[in-house]
């Protein structure tokens, strides 16, 4: 085997320039793949974390059907004790209960329809990033306090200390009304949130909307997005059967669709890149087999089976591919690490950045998957591209091959 390896290695350097050109194509595509996949996955992580951390969480406990209908009457009974019990069972997770409804919010000058959320003042700051994004005033603590987003404050022409009148309907269909004092204004960076929601203490919400101790959502954030599915299984096992537990893909289908759509279009581009490399490898493989037809004829005459010669050609490509993986992963890793430190501004990504609460400067991170997935695919496709020239050797007749120039 070592001699075959040595033979394959030396064969590569018979035409060093051609070999380097082929390896160069592999390295170039591998560097691009490593950087782009690392960048892309980092953006997805940010999109998921920032979007979910902002409000919806990794998962939510809800009453059956609430996710589709959002009806005031689809409630989780005794929601505060249930959230408290989950917090005891999962101390590493951030868990907070909420209730929500729609109201007409009116200032002295204007009125807007908004969603109002009753939140647990003690636990909401760890479950959602909104309390931490209060830029003016403070988060709600108790009583008739409310925080609203910057856009809504601007639209209603109100500021901290002003009163906000809320009119809506309670759980039993009765008229619900309250006059709240604005104690804080938040700026999440997500226009939809800043325009259309208000948060009040859960106890006040339950009183105003006749909730009788119930609520609508228990928001749960696992320590990391990767551990979310594990937490989901364990939490599901503890919940009563009449409650549903939805993960983020159900809570924010738009986010998942955006990621899936972006992945699909990217994979198309990656596919084109890999196919171009495959043709370069195929060209090299065919050339190298054709120009060695006579040599292969001799080897066959000596009793070397065509299959073994085919394996030799595949081994030559595998060696080029291995160099391509090593150099590609190394250079791609260095490039990604560099931008991981200095950051990277993607032109034209402003709209996506606003929608998914991304920072203007992105810092791609590297993982084993992002470092080797692309180069490994290039390696496999290169081997596949060499199968054709390798199989051609099976058709070679020793006598005719030896007559080749």
């Amino acid at each position, binding site marked *: 085997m*070592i*001699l075959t390896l040595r*033979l394959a290695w030396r064969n590569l*350097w018979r035409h060093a320039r051609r070999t380097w050109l082929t390896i160069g194509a592999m390295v170039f595509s591998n560097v691009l793949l490593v950087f782009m996949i690392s960048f892309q996955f980092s953006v997805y992580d940010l999109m998921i974390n920032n979007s979910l951390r902002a409000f919806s969480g990794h998962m939510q406990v809800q009453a059956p059907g609430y996710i589709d209908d959002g009806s005031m009457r689809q409630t989780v009974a005794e929601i505060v004790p249930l959230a408290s019990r989950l917090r005891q069972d999962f101390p590493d997770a951030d868990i907070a209960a909420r209730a929500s409804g729609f109201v007409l919010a009116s200032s002295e000058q204007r009125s807007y329809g908004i969603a109002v959320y009753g939140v647990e003042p003690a636990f909401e700051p760890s479950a959602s990033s909104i309390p931490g994004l209060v830029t003016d005033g403070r988060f709600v603590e108790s009583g008739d306090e409310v925080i609203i987003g910057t856009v809504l404050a601007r639209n209603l022409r109100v500021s901290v200390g002003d009163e906000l009148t809320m009119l809506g309907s309670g759980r039993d269909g009765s008229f619900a009304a309250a006059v709240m004092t604005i104690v804080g204004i938040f700026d999440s960076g997500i226009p939809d949130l800043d325009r259309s929601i208000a948060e009040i203490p859960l106890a006040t919400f339950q009183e105003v909307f006749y909730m009788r101790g119930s609520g609508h959502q228990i928001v749960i954030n696992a320590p990391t997005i990767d551990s979310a599915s594990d937490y989901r299984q364990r939490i599901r096992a503890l919940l009563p059967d009449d409650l549903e537990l939805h993960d983020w893909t159900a809570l924010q289908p738009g986010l998942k669709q955006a990621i899936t759509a972006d992945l699909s279009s990217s994979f198309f581009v990656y596919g084109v890149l890999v196919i171009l490399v495959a043709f370069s490898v195929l060209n090299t493989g065919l050339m190298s087999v054709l120009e060695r037809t*006579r040599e292969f004829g001799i080897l066959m005459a000596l*009793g070397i089976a065509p299959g073994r010669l085919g394996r030799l050609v595949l081994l030559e490509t595998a060696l080029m591919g291995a160099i391509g993986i090593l150099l590609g992963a190394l250079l791609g890793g260095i490039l990604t690490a560099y931008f991981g430190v200095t950051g990277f501004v993607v032109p034209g990504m402003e709209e996506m950045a606003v929608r998914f609460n991304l920072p203007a400067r992105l810092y791609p991170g590297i993982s084993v998957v992002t470092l080797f997935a692309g180069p490994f695919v290039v390696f496999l496709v290169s081997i596949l591209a060499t199968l054709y020239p390798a199989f051609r050797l099976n058709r070679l007749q020793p006598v005719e091959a*030896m007559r080749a120039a």
Partner: protein
Amino acid sequence: MSAVRCVDVCKTYRQGDEDIHALDHVSIEIANGGFVCLSAPSGGGKTTLLNAIGGLDVPDSGEIYIDEQRIDNLNKGELAALRLQKIGFVFQAFNLIPVLSARENVEFVMQVQGVAADKRRSLAMSILDEVGLGGLEERRPAEMSGGQQQRVAVARAIVSRPALVLADEPTANLDSKTSDELMELFTELNTHHRTTFIIATHDRRVMSYAKRLIKMLDGRIVDDIAQA
């Protein structure tokens, strides 16, 4: 027991509108330890016969036996295995693998045969010494003269002690002194190891070394002479 037996072997090529009878009902038998020269003018059929005996070319009809094993009906893989185990080839052009050294060229076939690394190394070194290339083992073909390359090719052909060596114009690219040295090497191997040699040639000096001379013309055997 015969080393090679051909029974009524025919091979026809189509060239334009004309059928060329490269082998026309050829029957020969060569005993173990034979030293035979096939002589014919160009196109006389000697290379075709050599290729058919070596399983490189399949005859249209007739039967070919190596060590009494019929080979004309074997498939590609079986023929390759037969050549690997039983037949050594020496070609007119030396046909070495250019990127391997003399020793590695000799070792390569043994590696395919499954000979252990240390054993094949020592065998290669000793056979290269035997063909007079001691000290040149690590040279690559491009760094050797034609005669030296042909010796490497011979060493490669005989290193695994095949029962049969087929040589096609082995001296065509060598000067007369080197040719004589090569033929003396063949004679020695034939005498000491009882290796059967079949050499296709039209070189009279080469023919003079043979114990038996088979003359061909237009694909037929026209003369079969035992020589002293």
